[in-house]
């Protein structure tokens, strides 16, 4: 499946650490890790539509669709968590497809604004209709789920449940990135007219990217809903969307790992900056501006530059420095 054993080793090391983590840290930190992992799925899922150049502002609303779908499925049919998560993801993908239909006629900046407006439309339906969405108060009473007698209310069992989803989701998204479809997406981003001229059905691929991103966002939303036991339209508003953008901007989005890195860094910053109280949004606004103006490629581009500096200086033949990592 993977090219070399180094990647396998890396993967196993990561999994080992991830598996041991909840037993080595305090209970609250396990909760933080659970949220981190859910956000991990979210941020990687956002990368997929951006691969075709579609920076939508409605992505967290897709997560919300997954969350609300889970809430409704649990309330109406009392389904097991093994069913609610994938079903919610499908609902999110379908809503994504519906939304992208008018959006496909716009691109770049117009796409940005239109996606913002349509996302808001969906969110406003949750706010407006108390039946069935609960209105501004949202919905409560979502079960935390259980599997074979293990109650997911406790953080440690739920951590492992989420870990499994994270592993498979990231695996699939990584494969998409590496596959022909992924390359097609990137081709569209680079030059969509050229892509069209060689016969690529651009609208079709854009829609596919959008819906796939929505699918995984739906998974994240569903896992979140089960953890919180409640959904609230405020969770999925433009402020949350801006935070998602901050993760991706800080990390960079040209490689698969960029967003993951950005999320990790910003999660630390978020937790450590708690003492700042009311000043926090200012810090994040500043970080966003700083990166976009001075380092638009994100931290991953910084590493690219550093790696160039340190590795490509070595004369040929001295080890495999040039081919380390991805």
């Amino acid at each position, binding site marked *: 499946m993977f090219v070399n054993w180094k990647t396998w080793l890396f993967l196993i090391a990561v999994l080992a650490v991830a598996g041991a983590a909840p037993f080595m840290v305090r209970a609250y930190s396990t909760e933080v890790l659970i949220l981190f992992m859910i956000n991990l799925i979210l941020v990687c899922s956002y990368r997929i539509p951006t691969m075709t150049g579609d*920076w939508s502002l409605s992505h967290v609303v897709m997560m919300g669709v997954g969350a609300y779908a889970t809430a409704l499925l649990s309330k109406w049919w009392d389904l097991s968590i093994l069913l609610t998560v994938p079903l919610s993801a499908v609902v999110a993908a379908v809503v994504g497809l519906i939304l992208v239909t*008018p*959006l496909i*006629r*716009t691109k*770049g*900046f*117009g796409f*940005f*604004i*239109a996606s*913002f*407006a*349509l996302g*808001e*439309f969906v969110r*406003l*339906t949750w*706010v*407006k209709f108390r039946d069935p969405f609960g209105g501004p108060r949202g919905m409560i009473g979502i079960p935390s789920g259980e599997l074979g007698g293990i109650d997911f209310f406790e953080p440690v069992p739920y951590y492992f449940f989420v870990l499994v989803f994270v592993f498979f989701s990231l695996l699939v998204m990584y494969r998409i990135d590496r596959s022909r479809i992924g390359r097609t997406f990137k081709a569209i981003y680079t030059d969509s007219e050229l892509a069209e001229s060689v016969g690529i059905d651009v609208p079709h691929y854009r829609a596919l990217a959008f819906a796939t991103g929505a699918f995984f966002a739906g998974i994240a939303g569903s896992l979140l809903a089960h953890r919180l036991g409640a959904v609230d339209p405020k969770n999925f508003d*433009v402020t949350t969307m*801006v935070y998602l*953008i*901050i993760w991706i*901007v800080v990390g960079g989005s040209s490689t698969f790992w960029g967003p993951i890195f950005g999320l990790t860094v910003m999660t630390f910053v978020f937790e450590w900056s708690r003492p700042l109280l*009311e*000043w*926090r*949004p*200012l810090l*994040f*606004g*500043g*970080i*966003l*501006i700083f990166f*976009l*103006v*001075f380092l*638009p490629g994100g931290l991953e581009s910084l590493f690219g530059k550093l790696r160039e500096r340190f590795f490509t200086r070595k004369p040929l033949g001295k080890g495999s420095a040039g081919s380390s990592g991805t």
Partner: protein
Amino acid sequence: MDLPTLIQTIANSVVAGSVYAIIAVGLAMAFGVMKMANFAHGEFFMAGAYVVYVFYALLGWPFPAAVLMAIPIVGAMGVATERFIFRPTRDNVMAGFMATAGLAFILQVLVGQTWGVGLMRSVPTPYMGAMDIFGAKIGWQRVLVLPSAVVMLSALWFFLYRVKAGKALRACAQDPETARLQGIRIGRMTMLAMAISGASAGLAGALMAPIHPVTPYMGHGVILTAFIIVVMGGMESIAGAVLAAVLLGFVHTFVTTLFDAVTAQMVGVAIMALVLIVRPEGLLGRVKA
């Protein structure tokens, strides 16, 4: 709907349309010239309201003077935004736009920390009392919004069509390459566009300060509406923005009165989606070649 309510609603629609027009015109202009939009445009509106709060409510200046102060102050904010955010990200429209989202956060926190968050600031109503039109009572404060909008838009029209700098601005919006060849300095033009953009948003906020509760987050509601109008009108078209603003003002107000504000927002978005499907270049926009 009985007659007084109908008249009241029409009057409110006129006010809403006027305010929307002032707000949207600035956004359309900035986009036309720079192909950049300002996510913090709502915060410029908020800044204008706070200018009035500070000068009129806190320092006791006469209301018209306080409103006029909003123009240079928020205009300067627009220029600063252009210089420090839009210019460095000129090649990447998305980056510039998202950076202004960061700017929005910053402005909200700065204003909130300086003048307090939470319970809304009230700006005293300078012109209390109401005008009676066929049984509907319209507060004087609201009545003066329409003439202010007309004056501002006329001044803008005059500038764009009769003043050299304004004509250069239009040229820039229509065809930047040719404009540059003609010797027009793009940097100057973008600065000018953002100055006007900021000034108009600030003016709108200043006029609304006694009518709207003044909070650091009052820009939230504005930005979505502004974008819808600009998209509806045709991204760069100023005339389109004015037309769409008036239309949306009426739609929003009537739907709010008949149903509620959330439904009104949804209807506005739905109309925008319809326009995008049927006529993506907007009401008065140009078809892209």
